[in-house]
């Protein structure tokens, strides 16, 4: 594991450097490393490139951490942050804000409110302890499906109402982008991801025991109910913050933990940190690809991750069926 983590970390640093110099306004890597940038180049670096590289790192790590934790929590290798319905709820919130209030900060606030409502609904069901199914994994999964379906329906209705311009903003935002973020947003994303990552790693032993099944996990001393609430809350909050600022970046939450497990085995203690590094790497690379295929046009990064992720998902599903 340490060697694998080191390799991924080196690749990540290389990808970040690459991402800093590539773009519509290329910077020479020798100048960057020796610090000999002129004012225009310096401003491109600090105002455009650096925030977006850090945002890609934070976003990728957050989706990967949330995915790894949720896969362990739901005992399902196909679980994804999108499963909880948080990104779609954030998308719906943003869409409502865009159409009712207009573009700008309202978009992000709307996304946060939407995600918050989804989390609150989830916790409400988890906490209603009396019914036999309450708080069960199946309940959470069904609730995630319901939230996703409701948000898809809401979005479909709203897109019908949206103007041409709003539609463009909305669709681009929905597919995800790490561009045009201010430093305060980037710092918020990095802080949330770091805090959430530490909190999830703190639950790693309990998540590991969940592989035995919920009942056996309880037998060996895991408070399954509490674990479920904690992990769902942490993961959903991380996904909400990232989605609010960057839109839905799909498949990273699914792919990164899988790659991590292939490298290091299934123990969450090792999978969580490694998946975070891999997720960051995937997003930084996807972001580089998104803006170097047809410059100066930037392709939506969520579409790039999906194009990379779908073959992986298909191979995983078919291999699982064969076994």
């Amino acid at each position, binding site marked *: 594991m340490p060697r694998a983590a080191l390799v991924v970390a080196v690749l990540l640093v290389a990808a970040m450097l690459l991402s800093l110099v590539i773009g519509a306004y290329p910077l020479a890597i020798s100048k960057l490393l020796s610090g000999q940038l002129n004012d225009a180049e310096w401003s491109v670096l600090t105002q455009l490139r650096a925030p977006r590289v850090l945002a890609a790192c934070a976003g990728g790590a957050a989706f990967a951490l949330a995915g790894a934790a949720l896969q362990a929590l739901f005992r399902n290798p196909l679980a994804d942050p999108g499963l909880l319905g948080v990104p779609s709820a954030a998308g719906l919130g943003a869409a409502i804000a865009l159409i009712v209030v207009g573009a700008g900060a309202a978009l992000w606030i709307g996304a946060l409110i939407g995600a918050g409502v989804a989390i609150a609904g989830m916790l409400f069901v988890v906490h209603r302890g009396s019914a036999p199914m309450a708080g069960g994994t199946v309940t959470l999964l069904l609730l995630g499906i319901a939230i996703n379906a409701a948000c898809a329906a809401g979005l479909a209705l709203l897109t019908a109402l949206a103007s041409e311009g709003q539609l463009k903003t909305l669709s681009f935002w929905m597919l995800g982008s790490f561009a045009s973020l201010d430093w305060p947003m980037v710092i918020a994303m990095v802080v949330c991801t770091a805090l959430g990552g530490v909190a999830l790693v703190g639950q790693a032993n309990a998540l590991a025991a969940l592989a035995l099944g919920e*009942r056996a996990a*309880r*037998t*060996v*001393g*895991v408070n399954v109910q509490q674990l479920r609430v904690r992990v769902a809350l942490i993961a959903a909050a991380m996904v909400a913050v990232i989605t609010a600022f960057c839109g839905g970046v799909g498949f990273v939450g699914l792919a990164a933990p899988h790659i991590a*497990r292939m490298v290091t*085995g299934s123990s969450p203690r090792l999978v969580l940190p490694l998946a975070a590094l891999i997720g960051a790497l995937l997003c930084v690379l996807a972001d580089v690809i998104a803006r170097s295929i047809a410059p100066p046009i930037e392709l939506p990064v969520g579409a790039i991750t999906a194009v990379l992720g779908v073959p992986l998902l298909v191979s995983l599903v078919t291999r699982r069926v064969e076994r």
Partner: protein
Amino acid sequence: MSAWAIPLLTVDAISVRIGGTLLLRDVTFALDSGKVLALLGANGAGKSTLMAALAGELPLTSGRIEFDGLPLATWTAAALAGRRALNASEPPVPFALSVADYVALGQPFAALDAEAVAAALAECHAAEWRGRDYATLSLGEQMRVQLARSLYQLGRPLSSTEPQSPCLWLLDEPCAHLDMAQRHFVLTLIARIAREREWAVVFSTHDPMEAQLIADHALLLRKGEVLAFAEANEALTEANLSACYGRSVALRPAFVAV
């Protein structure tokens, strides 16, 4: 020592009601450490409910369960995990997990004691599978690895010289999927552990023969109530078993593994 005077497990007039259905009514028994109790009853008689209540998983509607002199409800999850193990039917493991790693999850919050894991696997004659993916084992083999997990859960470092507090080992139909040889192995393992380590063992079964083979006591349930609780040879009579299963049962010679 006065601790020997009170039974390790005391079940005092417990009832369990879930949703309007009374699943257990007025169940009373006690079990000393080092003893094996067999739990018998027709489908739906309440064996699994009683097992869950003994494991501390179900709130009691009335009555009380005491474990080592303290009400079960006052035990913390962590303290209970060190003294009580449960083996019931378990879902498949969702990720690739080596047998050794699986057993180590018996103590998820403790530092790994590889020696103790190996010893628990050896006890269950499962040492040769330690590097295998758990999911590739047959059901019977998985059962033995699950037993090893419980032994590791309740076990202590091999170097420890302090006497171990007696533990409670609950097994819900441990022989459900096992062939004759595996079944014999598991039953004798359970009985040996109970005697050697002074653990109290409760196992449920659909086969009175299993109770005859290793149980010190037998408890027969019918519709959530105790039909009989006594030493195994006293409780396991044709009359009791006939009443338990609602049809006449006779004692005949049968094939058994020896």
